């Protein structure tokens, strides 16, 4: 698959997921087994009204979407995927007003499972706000 076609498909993928769309997620980049997706700060996504910090759940949704997109972009992936489990570590509060950018990488696949690592940061890429590890269903393409 060409890069252009992959990019187009990835964009369509995000836009076809009502929840990702509702959270304003935007596709940034995709390649063989990795994806980058960002999400804007929005007053509706705030988890702590005193500080304006985004709710962890919205960050989870971003990580989950990004992980799924990374799995689907894997060269050996035959079809869609579903999350088996996802663990998120919240390292610090995301700075209010800043976009959150996530990147997910598939680091291993078997015939039926894809293992993914992901991290997310705001405008300070040196200090991630969250990290995630997950297992996703995987169907290896027969070639």
């Amino acid at each position, binding site marked *: 698959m060409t890069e252009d076609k992959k990019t187009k498909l990835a964009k369509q993928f995000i836009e*076809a*997921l*009502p*929840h*990702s*769309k*509702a*959270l304003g997620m935007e596709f940034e980049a995709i390649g063989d087994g990795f994806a980058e997706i960002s999400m804007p700060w929005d*007053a*509706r*996504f*705030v*988890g*702590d*009204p*005193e500080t304006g910090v*985004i*709710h*962890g*759940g*919205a960050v*989870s*949704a*971003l*990580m*989950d*979407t990004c992980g*799924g997109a990374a799995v689907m972009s894997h060269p050996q992936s035959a079809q*869609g995927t*579903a*999350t*088996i*489990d*996802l*663990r*998120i*570590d*919240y390292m610090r*509060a995301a700075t209010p007003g800043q976009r959150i950018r996530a990147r997910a990488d598939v680091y291993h696949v078997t015939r039926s499972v894809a293992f993914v690592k992901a991290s997310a940061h705001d405008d300070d890429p040196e200090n991630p706000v969250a990290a995630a590890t997950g297992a996703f269903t995987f169907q290896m393409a027969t070639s």
Partner: protein
Amino acid sequence: MKRPEPVQVVKSRRDAALTKLYSGVPYVQFLGVQFDRRGDELTAVLPYDEKLIGNPILPALHGGAIAAFLETAAVIELTWASLWEQLEAGDVDPETMNTPRMPKTIDFTVDYLRSGLPRDAYARARVNRSGRRYASVHVEAWQDNRNRLFAQATGHFLMPPRDDG
């Protein structure tokens, strides 16, 4: 001996305190999460909405929406459990109390057991350990059948500093 308070007074105090915990959180409102209360037992309710869908072909609820729902159920249960004794002792008045400080999530792990159907979902959280600083909470979520969980989660939380020092 003091006469027990009328049941309606007790109920409305508890409900007012519970509402105060989650009604001010924008993201909880965005998802549409509500809470049912029976005594001190809470059930989080996620009414179905199209914007919660992840896979429109199946269709199935988005894993991120499920994670957010379970995390909300865990955080509210933890805050509610730590507020309960003061509330019952009459040490806090829901009308005048400040919104309690929320615990911070350290980590949260979700098991997706089956796909979430386009229906209402329910969750109950159990605080397995609650210390001064750290707490561990387990959450179970189901849809039509209480015995067929569609997701479960475990999370660790950092408790807010207590006012009493």
